[in-house]
């Protein structure tokens, strides 16, 4: 029993904090309409509060403080969730209205503070609870192990199965039992009433709360985000992470999408539709086609939408033998396919306002798509529509997509701005309204809302000309690792949702960063040159900074390439944690610590340089993450050793934390969105080179 006592609470600590971190991250992600940059903002505040907590925790001399901390964590979990869900109504936002940038930061900062602070308190309390002097290292490892278990549990067991309220309730129970276990006071069990009360009374409110006045008819957790169905009369709208994906039934839109695209091709027989409403399938079946492949990566959406199909024709379409429903990531599917298969590829996704959607608007994707189109195959995509005028930001956002298409396909066409259509092919397409109209009439299709006159409006030469001219002005190309369309959609978002702060940030240019870094670095060089203690401070600071920046770059690159961070964030964090732990334990008994520190710096630089190799496959991503965690853990441990004064550990921890906070905050709001992932990695290389050079300066003196 006594033996168990020495490790179970610490592992539970790790599990709880990791699962809560992921839960909170995902909740915030859906509150802010799926914008991945919030991952960085959340992580940075998480770090700073945990750091503050552990600083304060070191000064608490209460007898049952450790027991108490478990109780407080258990009591705070549900209210925190509720607080996050209340962000939208508190800002009196309408469903579908996005949170402005300033409020994104502010509400993240406020909603995380109590819970994270207490989680931070736990570590030093655990150390003093354990009583022995060398306990810190052991507890650190046990907590990391717990975090790893938590991440794995979340990814493979909890994700998609357990709702947020159930999960928090279970965590609250576990933590209360932990408190009972430590203190051996059975009376604490009575506290279960509180989480139970929360669970019963708040479960209902918490689902409708973010929707402010509209009652969601269904909420489902999926691997790729929280799916919500909003019902208005007979019409259902499907949201993923608060972002509207499609509405069903919406026959006018379904018809428009299908018939406008189909008119470009003289004889479309094999069609691939990526995402969107299954309601458009019946429209394609009106043509003499050989096969329609409908691909959607989220199984839950497929299940949900097929259950929602209220129209008989849609249910029939789904059963038609020409229709094949594929549940897979469309990019992976296309990459594997390789050979020309389709006459028409219809991209039916929302605008690339998140990194996970942007991966379908990059030149890399267009190139892959081109490979599966037959000789006169056509790709059609939708961009933001407008009336009267295309503003500069929308021009840039849509223009970068247009230009990326042009960089891959020989011919790219546009529709009038109200229709927001782009279509691309390697053979010339006829977009003369009369030809399209004739083609449509000859096919003698029965439609309810779509009609031949739409072509006159959508391809009116004056309007088409206007759009083409406006989009052609833009020369930017959107790629996987330099996701500019995503960035410009973010700017568009900033224009819509205001926020002066974001406007200022978006005005930052490369030379601002370089000159500002110069101004900061020069005095730092002077202050640290050949001074051992300061060099180690610098090294630990840059370690904190670069490890968080790296983590974010990995998360976003992962999202840009594979698109399901929402599911795998737990795994990514878990592996990083286990790496940290491994690194810290490997470097515990080292003779020449300073030399190792230098080598570790070099390893970081090499890793940052070679990172693109690791981005090639999903498995390598995890390897990369593990390697990087190990190096970061090693650096922390080695820096401690080379300092040679154990009482300095607290200060080093503080510096590490400040570095981590800045490393999460700056890259997530400036470096990654404005300059892309590759440049962020270069920035890390720069910072690490400086601390490596400083160590060399030291070695020249010391050795």
């Amino acid at each position, binding site marked *: 029993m006594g033996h168990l006592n020495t490790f179970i609470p610490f592992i539970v600590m790790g599990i709880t904090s990791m699962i809560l971190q992921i839960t909170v991250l995902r909740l915030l992600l859906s509150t802010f309409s799926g914008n991945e940059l919030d991952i960085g903002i959340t992580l940075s505040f998480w770090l700073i509060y945990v750091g503050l907590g552990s600083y304060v925790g070191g000064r608490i001399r209460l007898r049952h403080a450790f027991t108490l901390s478990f109780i407080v964590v258990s009591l705070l979990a549900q209210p925190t969730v509720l607080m996050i869900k209340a962000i939208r109504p508190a800002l009196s936002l309408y469903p*579908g209205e996005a949170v402005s940038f300033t409020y994104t930061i502010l509400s993240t900062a406020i909603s995380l503070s109590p819970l994270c602070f207490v989680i931070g308190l736990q570590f030093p309390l655990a150390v003093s609870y354990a009583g022995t002097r060398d306990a810190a290292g052991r507890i650190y490892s046990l907590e990391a192990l717990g975090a790893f278990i938590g991440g794995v549990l979340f990814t493979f067991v909890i994700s998609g199965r357990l709702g947020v309220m159930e999960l928090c309730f279970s965590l609250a129970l576990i933590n209360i039992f932990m408190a009972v276990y430590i203190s051996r006071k059975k009376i604490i069990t009575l506290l279960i009433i509180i989480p139970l009360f929360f669970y019963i009374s708040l479960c209902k409110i918490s689902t409708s709360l973010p929707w402010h006045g*509209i009652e969601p008819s269904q909420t489902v957790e999926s691997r790729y985000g929280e799916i919500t169905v909003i019902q*208005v009369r007979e019409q259902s709208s499907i949201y993923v992470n608060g972002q*509207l994906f499609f*509405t069903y039934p919406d026959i006018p839109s379904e018809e428009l999408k299908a018939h406008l695209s189909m008119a470009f091709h003289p004889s479309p027989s094999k069609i691939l539709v990526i995402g969107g409403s299954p309601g458009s399938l019946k429209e394609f079946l009106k043509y003499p086609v050989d096969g329609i492949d409908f691909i959607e990566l989220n199984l839950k959406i497929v299940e949900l939408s097929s259950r929602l199909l209220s129209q008989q024709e849609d249910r029939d379409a789904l059963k038609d033998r020409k229709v094949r429903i594929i549940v897979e990531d469309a990019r992976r599917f296309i990459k594997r396919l390789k050979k020309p298969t389709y006459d028409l590829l219809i991209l039916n996704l929302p605008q690339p306002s998140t990194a996970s959607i942007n991966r379908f608007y990059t030149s890399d994707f267009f190139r892959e798509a081109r490979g599966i189109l037959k000789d006169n195959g056509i790709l059609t995509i939708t961009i933001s529509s407008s009336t009267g*005028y295309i503003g500069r930001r929308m021009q840039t956002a849509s223009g970068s997509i247009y230009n990326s298409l042009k960089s891959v396909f020989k011919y790219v066409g546009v529709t009038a701005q109200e229709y927001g259509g782009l279509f691309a092919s390697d053979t010339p397409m006829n977009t003369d309204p009369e030809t399209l109209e004739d083609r449509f009439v000859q096919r003698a299709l029965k439609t309810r809302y779509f*009609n031949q006159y739409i072509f006159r*409006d959508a391809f009116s030469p004056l309007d088409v000309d206007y759009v083409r001219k406006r989009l052609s002005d833009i020369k930017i190309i959107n790629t996987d690792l330099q996701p500019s369309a995503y960035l410009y959609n973010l700017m568009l978002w900033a224009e*819509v949702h205001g926020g002066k702060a974001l406007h200022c940030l978006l005005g930052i240019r490369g030379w601002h960063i370089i000159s500002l870094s110069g101004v900061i670095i020069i005095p730092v060089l002077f202050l640290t040159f050949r001074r051992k203690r300061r060099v180690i401070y610098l090294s630990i600071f840059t370690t904190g900074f670069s490890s968080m920046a790296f983590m974010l770059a990995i998360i976003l690159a992962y999202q840009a390439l594979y698109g399901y961070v929402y599911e795998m964030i737990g795994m990514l964090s878990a592996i990083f944690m286990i790496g940290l732990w491994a690194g810290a334990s490997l470097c515990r008994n080292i003779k020449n610590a300073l030399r190792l520190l230098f080598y570790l710096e070099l390893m970081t630089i090499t890793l940052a340089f070679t990172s693109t190799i690791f981005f090639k496959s999903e498995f390598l991503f995890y390897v990369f993450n593990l390697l990087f965690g190990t190096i970061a853990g090693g650096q922390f441990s080695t820096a401690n050793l080379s300092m040679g004064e154990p009482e300095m550990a607290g200060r080093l921890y503080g510096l590490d934390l400040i570095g981590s906070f800045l490393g999460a905050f700056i890259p997530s709001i400036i470096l990654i969105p404005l300059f892309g992932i590759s440049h962020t990695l270069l920035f890390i290389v720069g910072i690490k080179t400086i601390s490596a050079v400083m160590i060399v300066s030291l070695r020249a003196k010391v050795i």
Partner: protein
Amino acid sequence: MAKTVQCELCPNACVLENGQHSRCRARMNKDGVLYSLVYGKPCAVHVDPIEKKPFFHFLPGTTAFSIATAGCVLSCKFCQNWQISQARPEDTDNYDLPPDNVVRQAIFYDCRSITYTYTEPTVFYEYMYDTAIIAKKYKIKNTMHSCGYIKEKPLRKLSKYMDAADIDLKAFTEDFYNRICSGSLKPVLNSLVVLKEEGVWLEITNLVIPTLNDDMKTVKEMCKWILKNLGPDVPIHFSRFFPHYKLTNLPPTPLETLTETRKTAMDAGLKFVYIGNIRHEGENTFCPKCKKMLIERIGYFVKQNNISNGKCRFCSTSIPGVWS
């Protein structure tokens, strides 16, 4: 010397210190004189079917030369033209098109009318007013699509040259105007009455937004007000909301809501009730007497027109509107 001025064009009645811009962003106080920043500088210039404005009882089947400058007196969260309406004139890419050139271009493109539209034409009042005078000389009609958020005096002055107006009656509660548009309803209702009095051909557009203004009780109240104050002949267009601007994630209006609003309006006694943007019998004009189809429209295109000399071809009932 004080250099503060107050704009008296719209109900916002901005009080501006020297150097300040108006709320609509299109006017500025420079040394105690208020200037229009958008005169002759439209950012949107298009040739559209008049049905797109929408005008259904005004020269059907013709095209309208449509212009707009940056700026708007309101800030509606659902604005589909927010890129013009919420922009400052210096942030948009503008054409250089003085009034006489507008008229010249309208003639060149064979347009029967000029429409001041897309954003709120009140913000480019001077430009619109001068253009309208020249257009009238050349027998080109003037029409505007406006939110009606303008003071009575300027509106009456403008009415002398304005042949038709389509007014957005966005909802029928002060609360909606307040919260969603940062404006108020009363001046809009007043503008409707003024336009009617001045003999400007009037049509009304109501954008039906799910959960925000789709309550049938209020729709009924609105239609009764129209009937009482403007008469049963005013055409009203119910149009479908699509996610735009700040409300990009609100679902589009269900079709049943639109058909129900149409029915409510017709039951209230309005004679010409249309559903915009949707292929539906609600986009055709029917004779209020013999119930036969007068104008068949598909989208923005007129397929057949059975009105001759302003009268129903079948039963000779005169149909309100401007037909030639």
